[in-house]
């Protein structure tokens, strides 16, 4: 019984999957960090008084949110033949661009939700616009961003599975490679799902705790 188990894909696929898991986490984390920077800039851009900045940000958010991520991935990898980027770079850019647009909306919503009086009070004591954002509005808005950002982390983590179509060796791609030779499709995919759930369920639980603590 135990020998059977040790000999099955539940165990034997693990070295392959582990390679994929590392790459999945790497793409998710790097992509999201870059995406947060992009999202913060374009999210504030959507609230900007400068029409060009606002216009560019809005077009970006609408285009990304209005098209399927799979199409975006293929476009970045195969469509941009002029730049010829590697598949890993394409994957990171895809997460950055895609998550960036959703994070832009998170940032915009959070900043917008801060009472106008906070901004006025900052300006009234003589703080500049930039200081008011930095010391007054942003710290309060950031607290409200934490739950939706955690949610975005879960979404982007799962989105990395799409990169198997451009042969990025993330966890689902590695699983396919494995079961293509052993045909233990069920067992291998079970392990893949367990991996995702091991990340997403604790993230959800932590988020709910944080939410309660922040009282947002």
């Amino acid at each position, binding site marked *: 019984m135990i020998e059977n188990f040790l000999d099955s894909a539940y165990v034997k696929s693990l070295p392959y999957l582990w390679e994929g898991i590392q790459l999945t986490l790497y793409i998710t984390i790097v992509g999201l960090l870059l995406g947060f920077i992009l999202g913060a800039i374009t999210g504030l851009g959507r609230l900007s008084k400068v029409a060009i900045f606002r216009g560019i940000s809005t077009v970006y958010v609408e285009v990304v949110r209005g098209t399927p991520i799979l199409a975006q991935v293929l476009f970045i990898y195969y469509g941009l033949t002029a730049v010829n980027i590697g598949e890993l770079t394409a994957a990171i850019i895809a997460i950055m661009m895609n998550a960036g647009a959703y994070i832009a909306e998170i940032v915009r919503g959070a900043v917008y939700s801060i009472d106008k009086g*906070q901004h006025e009070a900052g300006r009234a*004591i003589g703080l500049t616009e930039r200081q008011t954002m930095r010391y007054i509005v942003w710290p*309060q808005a950031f607290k409200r961003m934490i739950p939706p950002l955690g949610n975005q982390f879960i979404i982007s983590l799962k989105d990395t599975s799409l990169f198997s179509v451009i042969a990025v060796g993330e966890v689902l791609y590695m699983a396919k490679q494995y079961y293509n030779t052993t045909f233990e499709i069920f067992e291998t995919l079970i392990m893949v799902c367990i991996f995702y759930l091991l990340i997403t369920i604790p993230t959800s639980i932590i988020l709910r705790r944080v939410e309660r603590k922040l009282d947002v």
Partner: protein
Amino acid sequence: MITVKDLHKSFGELEVLKGIDAQIKEQEVVCVIGPSGSGKSTFLRCLNLLEDVTSGEIEIDGQQLTDPRIDINEVRSQVGMVFQHFNLFPHKTVLENITLGPIKVKGVSEGEAKEIGQSLLKKVGLADKENAYPDSLSGGQKQRVAIARSLAMDPKVMLFDEPTSALDPELVGDVLEVMKDLAQEGMTMVVVTHEMGFAKEVGDRVFFMDEGVIMEEGDPVQIFDNPQNPRTQSFLSKILS
């Protein structure tokens, strides 16, 4: 101290201020009364450019606020503002609320700002609350912290926008007491208020505003006991009855 000439302010099509002329002297306490929608809050907010002015001139302590070259932040640091809803910074302690302006705007050291803050908290009767967060304070306490926050910038003028309107009745007195002390120390104050008792007792002059202009002005006794303008009469009869 403050000179306002033919001040107009429109929000889109809607003209809220239709030509305000006013003079406020140093150390004077002016109370602005009038029905809601009369433009009294907008007038006050123009005095520190929280609203940009459509046309007209505002001069405070020799500085033309409407001059495009003026440093707005510099002006605002000299004109304190107290809001109806306090607008304290909820993520900062009481003391941090007060010291933020001196540290970031005036470049005062943290230690010095802390001393300023503590002495101001003592002055408004909240010395024991310096490490509390605004959420744990009552409305009256919040407003006194907000007053201390403004005073920390050592302003030449203090503007009050209905400072007691959001307070429970039993908490109004403490705030008015602090304001009265300020007036007695010689602070120049412009107060939009519904507290007729305060206006009578502390105010040097009262402006009655309606429909975007100052309809009537005069010393409090004259305005309250013997109003000349029929609109003033009708407004006062409504609120005093």
